[in-house]
């Protein structure tokens, strides 16, 4: 009896959470689509989310591309036929389809999602969000919408840059470490890459940008209980958006490449 009750209670709590997140998402999206738009704030968030994430993303994808080339080569040596073109293909497809978006998404979740949750959470517990309302300003319009719009708009851009740097990482290792032919490497990379691969990566990027900023805003907006509450909101935003990124990444891949 008590076990059933506990399970029931956990299940109900889960449903309530899903309901709350859904409501929050609907309101947030409606404010992203309806004027007025605070262009100044959107611009500032684009700088914050996009521009300042560039170094982190560049480093992450560079080393991902490098290690990918190195490890594929180790695998190929044992039964090596046409390792050169195969490695170029592995690097370019893995980076654009999967590693670029996922690694960049996780890094941005850690860097941007946490800072959004901490900032909005602090505004909540210091009554700044209440103050917005008393000044006839909708917090969704003013805080949530600019961040979500900036996230959806900048992540694809970031990931295009990350993809290029990732392929470049594979190139460096292949040419300088493994002694491949540079022209052949670049030609294979280009030939094996189809628009579909890049588009999947960009769709993923936009979805991840949405998830990261939305979860950051949701956790921050609903935080309570002083500094500790803000800390919890920060952790929850990173954990929940990271998990959602991994799950959605699989689903989107299955949708595009599943047979």
């Amino acid at each position, binding site marked *: 009896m008590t076990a059933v009750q506990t399970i029931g209670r956990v299940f109900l709590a889960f449903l309530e959470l899903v309901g709350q997140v859904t409501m929050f998402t609907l309101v947030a999206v409606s404010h992203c689509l309806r004027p007025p738009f605070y262009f100044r704030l959107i611009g500032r968030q684009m700088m914050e989310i996009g521009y300042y994430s560039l170094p982190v993303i560049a480093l992450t994808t560079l080393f991902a591309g490098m290690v990918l080339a190195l490890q594929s080569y180790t695998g190929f040596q044992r039964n090596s036929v046409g390792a050169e073109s195969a490695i170029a293909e592995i690097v370019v497809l893995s980076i654009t389809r999967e590693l670029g978006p996922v690694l960049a998404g996780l890094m941005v979740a850690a860097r941007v999602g946490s800072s959004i949750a901490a900032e909005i959470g602090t505004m909540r517990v210091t009554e700044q969000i209440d*103050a917005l309302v008393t000044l006839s300003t909708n917090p969704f319009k003013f805080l949530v919408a600019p961040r979500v719009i900036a996230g959806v708009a900048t992540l694809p851009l970031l990931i295009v840059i990350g993809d290029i740097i990732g392929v470049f990482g594979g190139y460096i290792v292949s040419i300088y470490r493994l002694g491949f032919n540079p022209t052949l490497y670049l030609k294979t990379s280009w030939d094996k890459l189809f628009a579909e691969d890049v588009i999947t990566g960009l769709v993923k990027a936009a979805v991840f940008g949405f998830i990261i900023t939305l979860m950051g805003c949701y956790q921050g907006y609903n935080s309570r209980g002083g500094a500790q509450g803000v800390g919890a909101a920060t952790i929850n935003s990173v954990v929940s958006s990271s998990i959602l990124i991994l799950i959605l990444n699989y689903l989107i891949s299955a949708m595009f490449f599943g047979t």
Partner: protein
Amino acid sequence: MTAPKIRLQGVRKKFGAKVVLDGVDLDVMAGESVVIIGGSGSGKSVTLKCILGLMTPDAGEIAIDGEPVIGVGGRERERINAKIGMLFQSAALFDSLTVWENAAFGLIAGKGMSRREARPVAMEMLARVGLDAKFAMMSPADLSGGMRKRVGLARAIAIEPEILFFDEPTTGIDPIMGDIINELIVKCTEETGATALTITHDMASARKISDRIAMLYKGKIVWAGPTGEIDRADNGIVQQFINGRAEGPIEIDVRRL
């Protein structure tokens, strides 16, 4: 007789099992300055938040200018709140903005004024609350508590509201700065003819700024009357509170040693 500017009738609010407001009735007439006094945790801030729509009461009615406001959201709520300026207990300044941007916030974000137009108005408001222009470009985080309250006051009066709410305007600052704030409040309400509703447990401040005082105790207004009559109030709870005595009819949630 005209409708009161603010009318609360039977407002109830509880958190879980804890009843905070248990049928609050209060009328505030236009141009009047009313102070609600009451102990810490008696629900004074909750009362203001219910009027502003930051919390929804469980029961009762709240009307501003005769218009019911409970459950009103969206654009309607923005229109109603545009009539109200609020000074928060902790000032609640936006720390991502500078001092002048804070003072100008209601004008720019709420009323859609351009930054260029709003800036001189904000500077004038800052001057009005006695803040030097050199503070305008500073971050609110670098100000003292008294200065933050004054910026909060400038932000509240900048939109020229018909109604001003002050949540413990003098708490946590020294008595001299407290008195300066009191004078600012009196000056601002007199100059603009605004209706003021203040909550405080600072009796000196209450006497200075109010026309009428109401005492909130156990979720109800137990006494309300003109400020001059409070010393003659035939009410043990009021007498204990204004004289600050530990012994009396007020039950306090603390274990005596």
